[in-house]
């Protein structure tokens, strides 16, 4: 019996959407599915260390305004310049919901593959060193398409 797979694109850098992606990935991996998360564009924030990124003027400006790191993600609504993020973190912690950092660790522990889109990484002038160690590889669309084509679950978040 061929192994069942799941392929999820994470294009959003919103806290709520990344939460959804990580919970689904963890659930799929827990069910024995070979799961891949492909982070592109804003999603790359979730797998960055949080360094200052960028080389040229615009790249650096972007790096300042769009500082990476999974702890810095804002909710897609009611962001209130950062207060929303703090409120949601508090509400979730009080109900024992795992934090994004814990979720990411659980997911990698269960064997979820973390891949990053080379093209958007390039455009946003982010380097490999700016990515967290858990990232397995920096790849192009063909790799994702191959994973998705053989998957039972394919999602765009």
């Amino acid at each position: 019996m061929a192994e069942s797979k799941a392929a999820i694109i994470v294009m959003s850098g919103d806290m709520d959407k990344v939460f959804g992606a990580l919970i689904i990935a963890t659930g799929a991996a827990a069910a024995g599915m070979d799961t891949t998360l492909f982070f592109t564009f804003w999603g790359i924030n979730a797998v960055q260390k949080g360094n200052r990124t960028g080389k040229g003027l615009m790249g650096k400006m972007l790096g300042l305004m769009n500082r990476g790191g999974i702890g810095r993600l804002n909710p897609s609504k009611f962001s209130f310049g950062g207060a929303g993020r703090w409120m949601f973190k508090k509400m979730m912690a009080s109900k024992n919901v795992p934090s994004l950092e814990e979720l990411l660790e659980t997911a990698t522990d269960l064997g979820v593959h973390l891949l990053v889109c080379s093209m958007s990484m390039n455009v946003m002038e982010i380097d490999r060193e700016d990515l967290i160690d858990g990232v397995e590889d920096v790849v192009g669309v063909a790799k994702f398409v191959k994973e998705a084509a053989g998957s039972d679950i394919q999602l765009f978040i």
Partner: protein
Amino acid sequence: MDVKVDQVQDSIGQMCPMPIAFLARNMRKMEAGQVLEIQADDEGAHADIPAWCEQTGNEFLGEVQADGFVKYYVKKTD
């Protein structure tokens, strides 16, 4: 429920997806025929644990209400 339990997983206070993540991890380390008791108070677990069993081919033996939480029994199959 009259079943010999080989391991107990305490997932009380844990929220989705943690009970399932730990279930998967614990099952990996167990042998076929062994039974894991999962103690959980997460509402979703009542649907999640049987679904996980069906998808992975492990046996869901049942659940027992306890004081403020539920005990689920899963038997590892080959």
